[in-house]
């Protein structure tokens, strides 16, 4: 047979591939999936050549008599190159690899495409070796939270718990609420760092940071102080605020701030947002945004509600944003040298802190999130005798807070704190009776008509994702002006990162502690917090002002998952 190869007639035998004939004639064609010992596949589409105006792969195309083949046109070169570009977006080069050689030959250093693997870094892990197959996680995820993201697979001794269809986390509706971990009796499901080795590594990292003169700030969520004591054998419902601050200082944090401050700040913004929406009658009901698991749930399952959700960042993100701007300026530290560690009752906060939109001054608002369990273990690892510690106070200015901020830790708390402030703003009068008992307690869906001046405001408080699902899908959500949503039963005091065991009885005790704290405080209204007032007058201007919008507000977007 005779074929024309790049304008020259050459001899070839029937059954030979274009690649073979070209190689024999010293014409180099780059290949990738082809291997001389194996059957050609034509998968990678790198060994393209042009035959009678068509691009074909040379490895698996057999020659025909009088075939005209061109291997060196621009069209060929561009097509080969683009296929390598498409292949190498996830690839970090190691020079000696076959692939690197081909990529280099075609002049590719870095793909024009972004990485395809947009894997969510899961803040949780599952260790089947430790799993007792007790089925608690399956029930809490399916029946209580109604997410149905954990199920049994396999039979007999091969039984195991899995994510449905073995999907990757990014495709599942897991909200990282962490209730599965909270109910796990054997630590088989847990936040990623919650094992001995990880805690030790984390401590070493911390020491390194402190040595490098990074300024490391801790902030603690309202619900942590009502539960941390349980990690050290104290009775549920013991408030350990002062001991917790002391312990964090002993671990080596430069400053210990209070997320309650961020909660007060959230109320300033969110109450203003509520009043604005009530006036314009737009996007009502307003729905709270403090709970990151609820936010992810809404983004994937009820995207039509996103416009109703408050644009406020959650309190600890607000503290992070303020720490990296206002506070960093104040103490003369660069934002990148300042590290914010949030101590949270929550696993979803770990996911939230990694959200790309939650950044300030080029850094994440919050760098690290630790759960109550993790910080408890760190304190133990440091051999600190927690129960014997003296009480210390939070640092100023981001450590000053009100009772309104404190009750954020329980279901109904955000609503109550907001109502206290909204009442004053709307009526101009001082609120006499501060307790809104009707939004308190462990009932799944609580509703109430609140009279403010001559207006009746219809509010609802829903906690537990299962209750939230029922509340939304029944259409009841449309009947209200203002709704508080929390993913975990009981709110943050029953959060996925809280000490084990957690039961409704224990939730109630923690709840009582939080309300005790609120009652005992002189300052119970978020808008009366002097540090918050100072922050607005010195730095932010007014709620929903330009600066507030930039630092304290965020956006949500629809999220695709394989089932909801």
């Amino acid at each position, binding site marked *: 047979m005779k074929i024309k190869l790049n304008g020259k007639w050459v001899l070839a035998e029937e059954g030979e591939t274009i690649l073979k004939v070209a190689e024999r004639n010293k014409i180099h064609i780059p290949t990738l999936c082809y291997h001389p010992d194996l059957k050609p596949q*034509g*998968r*990678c*589409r*790198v060994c*393209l050549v042009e035959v009678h105006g068509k*691009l074909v*792969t040379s490895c*698996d195309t057999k020659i025909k008599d009088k075939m005209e083949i061109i291997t060196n046109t621009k069209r060929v070169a*561009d*097509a080969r190159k*683009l*296929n390598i570009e*498409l*292949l190498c*977006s996830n690839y970090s080069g190691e020079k000696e690899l076959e692939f690197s050689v081909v990529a280099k030959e075609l002049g590719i250093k870095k793909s*024009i*495409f*972004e990485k*395809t693997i947009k894997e969510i870094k899961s803040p949780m892990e599952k260790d089947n070796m430790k799993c007792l197959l007790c089925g608690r996680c399956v029930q809490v995820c399916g029946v209580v939270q109604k997410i149905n993201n954990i199920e049994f697979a396999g039979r007999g001794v091969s039984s195991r718990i899995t994510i449905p269809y073995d999907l990757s986390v990014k495709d599942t509706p897991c909200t990282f609420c962490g209730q599965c971990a909270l109910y796990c009796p054997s630590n088989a499901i847990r936040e990623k760092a919650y094992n001995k080795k990880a805690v030790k590594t984390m401590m070493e990292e911390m020491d390194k940071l402190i040595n490098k003169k990074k300024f490391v700030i801790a902030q603690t969520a309202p619900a942590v102080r009502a539960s941390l004591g349980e990690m050290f054998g104290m009775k549920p419902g013991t408030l350990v605020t002062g001991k917790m601050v002391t312990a964090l200082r002993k671990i080596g944090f430069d400053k210990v701030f209070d997320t309650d401050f961020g909660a007060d700040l959230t109320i300033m913004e969110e109450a203003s947002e509520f009043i604005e929406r009530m006036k314009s009658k737009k996007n009502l009901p307003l729905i709270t945004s403090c709970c990151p698991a609820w936010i992810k749930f809404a983004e994937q399952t009820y995207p039509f509600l996103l416009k109703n959700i408050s644009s406020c960042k959650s309190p600890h993100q607000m503290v992070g944003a303020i720490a990296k701007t206002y506070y960093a300026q104040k103490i003369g530290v660069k934002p990148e040298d300042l590290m914010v560690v949030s101590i949270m009752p929550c696993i979803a906060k770990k996911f939230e802190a990694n959200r790309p939109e939650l950044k300030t001054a080029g850094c994440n608002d919050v760098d690290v999130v630790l759960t109550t369990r993790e910080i408890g273990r760190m304190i133990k690892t440091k051999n600190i005798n927690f129960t014997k510690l003296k009480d210390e106070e939070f640092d100023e200015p981001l450590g000053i807070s009100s009772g309104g901020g404190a009750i954020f830790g329980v279901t109904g708390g955000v609503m109550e704190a907001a109502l206290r402030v909204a009442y004053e703003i709307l009526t101009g009068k001082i609120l006499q009776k501060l307790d809104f008992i009707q939004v308190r307690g462990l009932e799944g869906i609580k509703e109430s008509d609140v009279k403010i001046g001559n207006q009746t405001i219809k509010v609802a408080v829903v906690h537990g994702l299962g209750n939230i699902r029922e509340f939304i899908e029944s259409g009841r959500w449309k009947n209200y002006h203002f709704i508080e949503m929390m993913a975990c039963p009981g709110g943050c005091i029953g959060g996925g990162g809280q000490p084990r065991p957690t039961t409704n009885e224990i939730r109630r005790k923690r709840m009582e502690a939080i309300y005790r704290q609120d009652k005992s405080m002189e300052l119970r209204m978020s808008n009366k917090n002097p540090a918050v007032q100072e922050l607005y007058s010195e730095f932010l201007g007014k709620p929903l002002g330009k600066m507030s919008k930039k630092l304290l507000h965020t956006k949500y977007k629809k999220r695709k998952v394989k089932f909801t």
Partner: protein
Amino acid sequence: MQILRKSNWEGFEKTRKMKRIEIINVVKKSGLKGRSGSNFFTGLKWELMGKGTRYLICNADESEPGTFKDKFIMENNPSLLIEGIAIASYAMDIHSAIIYLRGEYFHLKPKLEKLIKQSEKHLKKIKLKIKIVLGAGSYLCGEETAILESIEGNRPLVRKKPPYPSQSGLYGKPTCINNVETLANIPLIILGNWDNNLQLFSLSGDLNEPGIYEIELGMPLKHIVSLGKPKNEPKAVYFGGSGGCIPYQKFKNLRVDNELISEKGGFLGARGLIIVGENRDIVDISRTLSEFFVHESCGYCTPCREGNFRVVELLEKIENNKAKKDDVKLLEQLAYHISDTSYCALGVASTTHLKCALKYFKKEFKV
């Protein structure tokens, strides 16, 4: 409708008195071409069959978006199909036929099985067994060689041709693969008084009366579209998911046949017309279609697997006003690259819609 005529096995009985080659010649002479959109002469396909044990496969894996004519036949005149299979099998001396039924059409399986059982007295005469294999929902399995892999129990991938199935098909034996509509027409051809130009069109989209229409090939586009009673002024007409689109206003007088549509950059295919109303966003439709191809790509070759993924990414950027100037250029480059370098026909056709959209509706791809 011609396709709803009953034959009651009269066509079959007629062929029993004919020689095999005579039947093939009648089909050849009729001018019947594959109604799946491939347009290969059916009689010629039958004639090219290799020797030895042979199979007939009825391709009922109708999964092109906006195409549902085969379902219409199987629901409304299935006995014509069974008779067509019998005649084709007899003409090619085949004793084993398989209906490869689309997974989503599972509800038709019991009905067809019952019908096959009722037809046994006819099938016995030519020692023909007809079996139904239910697909598992892959779009790719509409491709004739992927069907073969699927029936053999393998991961459904497209085989490299040659060898063609007529020489080496199912289990390496000569295999004829014909579409439902093609086979259903066979008894009618045998009986005579049959019009090759009367073909089934699936009309869907922004219409008040979507559905199946039997239309003479070559009618003006506006006539076809008006049958479906458009809800509003049509903006574009898509030919399934893989056949691309043409703008309606500009081409409403165009006669609809394979050559003329191909000239405009589209592909008439299996005649599934999706009418897109004036209020629709072409970029949104492009993304939806490309997402379909990302989902249905088997993942074998680079351009189809990775390229369509990037196409969706770029279209999302355009929709969210995040695209840069070069992004539309890259989109265009990818559209041509994917159809130029993909391994199989699915990959090649996966960007036809995008090439057409960029050709006729470029203004909507704003950066």
